[in-house]
């Protein structure tokens, strides 16, 4: 037994973050720490890593009581953590950040030795040729920052490393590399704690699972192999809730409905480069993507909270150009930003004033004009099931996350907006209230509001929205009906461009060498979603490009796609021939297919050689 935590308690103000959390960790294992939002996973991680001191409970490390007064104590004991929010110094280089903890030690640092070690670590993570050690961290993408954060923990050579949601901003390929590194560390006898809410990942990599709920441990150290996904969910939620997203029926197609709000080529560098989407009356549109892909920033740019350098917007057919949120509010656009505490709640105003804050923003009089809204306020309280007397509470801060969120959403509904944009509407909201929020969003969409939802929870996004616009590296790269997607496809679609570089290079080489077109796609029985494509010869174009979801019949190569043989398949009209090769990671993960289409009959091309070339990607 390497580490044992017994009955840990921790209270913040009135919130009991930990109420009897227990946990044990063996040497040479990867142990998953699971739980819904707010279950206390991060708090427990911070207690173990010395960021927080517990109010009660015992910690034993290698059989000895462990008393951590600071993170430095933890580091000295050999405990490191990769935090959820990155804690990098933005103005320092990648190298300096990786060795930041070393700067706190006494003695001299050998820069050349540090360079060598850093290079080796980045190589392990598969970033050696992508990430330069001398780049300033402020210039990195969210995924790259997360990788530097991971490298920083690896450089400590700690015996126990906690990974707190390390994969939220990583592409599927990067996650695989990380898992390889984790597996190697495990073999070398280290112990790893893996905090994640992606169950597939947990099932793939961990040995044992501990599940937390409401600050307490509800399942301790169960063998991962003995559990199914459904059982884990039941443990996390505490009741049968598999239907949570399904119950909230996905809205029907709104193809006929008029477009209420459209944005084209929105740019607000560096986070937002080129985003376009349109949302119809009564529709819920999802903006999907990895953490840090620029979704929140897009919403902020649209709403006038962030300077835009380009792009056009139409609301109800008329051009609009919001330079300040006030303009958007008055035009009938509402926006619930992601961070409740920082961007939504005004702590010193009463609950009622918080509810009426957007009204105040839209109001043109000298006085308050609260009375005119009273009827609507009463209606909303009823709709949201909020107790009326609590409106007079002096502060919202000690409401539950769910109740806070309901009030913030009500703040906008009060204005009867035409468009409502919500950024992570269920973040930090308990599962029961989640359901209520889904129903609410569906109801207001049915009432004719155009709703745009941003969420990193792909299950939620797929369950809620009719269509999903995928954003990656600040660009909208796909606009696909939710019914054509599942979580896996969405994850692959959302991969940042940086992680696709190798892939794009290969497609480029193939297309150029053979005088045709290369593509990477996810292929089902009779439809496909294209992830990436390079066309060198227009006459060989497969009839779709990156971000498209098409039926085979709609493409220019229906036979080639259906064939999936060892050799090139020529279309009936003889115009194109196609070879497709499946891509699998060595962990057996399905990464879709890479295809090569050439004009005419593919004479003189060796399918075998090309197949080999494509399969280099599998490594």
């Amino acid at each position, binding site marked *: 037994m390497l580490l044992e935590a017994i009955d840990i308690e921790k209270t913040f*103000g*009135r919130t009991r973050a930990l109420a009897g959390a227990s946990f044990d960790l063996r040497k040479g294992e990867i142990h998953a720490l699971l739980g819904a939002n707010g279950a206390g996973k991060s708090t427990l991680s911070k207690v173990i890593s010395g960021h927080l001191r517990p109010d009660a409970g015992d910690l034993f490390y290698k059989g000895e009581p462990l008393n951590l007064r600071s993170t430095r104590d933890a580091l000295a004991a050999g405990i490191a953590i990769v935090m959820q929010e990155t804690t990098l110094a933005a103005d320092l280089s990648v190298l300096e950040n990786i060795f930041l903890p070393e700067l706190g030690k006494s003695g001299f640092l050998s820069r050349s030795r540090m360079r060598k070690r850093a290079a080796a670590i980045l190589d392990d993570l598969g970033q050696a040729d992508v990430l330069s050690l001398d780049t300033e961290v402020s210039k990195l993408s969210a995924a790259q920052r997360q990788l530097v954060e991971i490298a920083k923990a690896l450089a400590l050579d700690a015996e126990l490393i906690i990974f707190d949601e390390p994969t939220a901003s990583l592409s599927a390929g990067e996650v695989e590399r990380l898992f390889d590194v984790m597996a190697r560390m495990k073999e070398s006898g280290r112990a790893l704690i893996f905090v994640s809410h992606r169950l597939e990942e947990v099932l793939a990599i961990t040995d044992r699972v501990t599940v937390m709920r409401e600050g307490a441990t509800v399942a301790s150290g169960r063998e991962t192999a003995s559990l199914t996904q459904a059982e884990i969910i039941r443990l996390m939620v505490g009741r049968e809730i598999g239907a949570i997203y399904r119950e909230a029926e996905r809205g029907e197609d709104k193809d006929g409905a008029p477009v209420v709000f459209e944005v084209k080529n929105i740019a607000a560098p560096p986070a937002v480069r080129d985003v376009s989407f349109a949302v119809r009356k009564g529709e819920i549109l999802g903006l999907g993507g990895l953490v840090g892909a620029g979704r929140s920033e897009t919403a902020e740019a649209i*709403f006038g*909270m962030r300077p835009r350098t380009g792009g056009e917007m139409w609301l109800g057919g008329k051009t609009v150009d919001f330079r*300040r*949120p*006030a303009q*958007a*509010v*008055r035009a009938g656009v509402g*926006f619930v*930003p992601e961070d409740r505490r*920082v*961007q*939504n*709640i*005004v*702590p*010193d*105003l009463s609950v009622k*004033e918080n509810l009426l*804050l*957007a009204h*105040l*923003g*839209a*109001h043109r*009089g*000298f*006085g*308050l*004009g609260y009375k005119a809204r009273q009827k609507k306020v009463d209606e909303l309280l009823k709709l949201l099931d909020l107790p009326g*007397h*609590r409106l*007079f*509470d*002096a*502060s919202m*801060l*000690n409401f539950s996350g769910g109740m806070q969120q309901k009030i913030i959403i009500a*703040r906008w509904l009060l204005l009867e907006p035409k468009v409502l944009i919500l950024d992570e509407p269920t973040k930090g909201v308990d599962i029961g209230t989640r359901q209520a929020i889904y129903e609410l969003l569906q109801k207001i969409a049915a009432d004719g509001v155009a709703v745009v939802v941003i969420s990193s929870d792909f299950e939620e996004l797929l369950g809620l929205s009719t269509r999903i616009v995928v954003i990656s590296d600040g660009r909208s790269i796909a606009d696909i009906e939710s019914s054509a997607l599942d979580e896996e496809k969405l994850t692959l679609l959302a991969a940042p461009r940086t992680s696709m570089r190798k892939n794009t290079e290969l497609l480029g080489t193939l297309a150029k060498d053979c005088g045709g077109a290369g593509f990477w796609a996810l292929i089902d029985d009779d439809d496909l979603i294209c992830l990436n494509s390079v066309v060198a010869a227009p006459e060989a174009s497969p009839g779709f490009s990156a971000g498209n979801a098409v039926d085979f019949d709609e493409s220019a190569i229906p036979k080639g796609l259906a064939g999936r043989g060892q050799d090139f398949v020529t279309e009936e009209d003889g115009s194109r021939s196609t070879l497709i090769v499946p891509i699998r990671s060595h962990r057996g993960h399905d990464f879709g297919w890479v295809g090569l289409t050439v004009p005419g009959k593919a004479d003189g091309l060796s399918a075998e050689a090309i197949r080999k070339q494509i399969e280099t990607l599998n490594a």
Partner: protein
Amino acid sequence: MLDQAKTTRGTEDTAKTSASGQGFDAVSMAKRIFTRLEFRMLALALLIAVVLSFASPYFLTRTNIFNILDQSVVIGLVSIGMTFVILTGGIDLSVGSVAGLTGIVLGLALQDYSIPVSIGIAVLAGAGIGLVSGILVAYFGLAAFVVTLGIMAIGRSLAYILSGQTAISGIPSSLSEIVYTSILGIPANVFFLGVMYLLAWLYLTYTKGGRTIYAIGSNKEAARAAGLNVLFYSVLPYVVSGAFAAVAITFSIAQILSADPLAGNLMELDAIAAVVIGGASLYGGRGSIIGTLIGVLIMVMIRNGLNLMGVSPFWQGSAIGTIIILALLIERLVSTRTSQ
């Protein structure tokens, strides 16, 4: 340090809510009143009054009470503007030197114009200087502390230059009517102070602008996201502050009939102290105009009482400084206690 303040803020909120959540029985009512900082400070003010009335038999006489009110006018007016600024999370260090400068402007204007026109010019000058500070702080995003420190130096220097380094005398004695007339049995200046506090209270409590000022100080980001006009209402408090500095010095000049370029020196410290004693947070968003009025009265009473007791003016600074810090320390301890 900031974090710590926010934490305490959070726990105070908790206390308030728990008191208001459960009906209106006497106990919770009393607790509710006690948890309001203004009332605690009012209790402190009364305590100080009682102590001082024992220390000096003269303290509680009618003449001395009017004396105290009279001495409260100038600092009280400046503190209104300071409250506005501090509520947004800013600070205005320039009020003293703006008072000095606008006093000189008034003195010079009176040589050519009528009294109302001259006062108008001085107040506009004060508001104009406030506008400059406000724009530098809110639009260009410079630190309020630094901007108003700069304006403070410039203001004092201009006051010396415009006055020719000496006090301007020859102020028409009819100006003193704004102090020595009585309205409903109350001296005009005290009456004016009361009216201004009432108007400021109404504005901060019952208008869009007032609530916006609170919202900006409490969470600027959220205020902006809700579509409030953050820029305008971040600038306005500095304008109000500059204007009130001019109004305040007008009352001061009306009493001594001379405009001194050194007037208003260190006035900003008294004003900030009054606002803070009145319960405002220097991080913005919390505080009240009534609290400020109590803060002003506490400051003036202490000074007045020390004078009556014959304490040397050199010791008064130490005494006042100690009392301010003690008051805030006790307040902090009490407010954390009541929240647990």
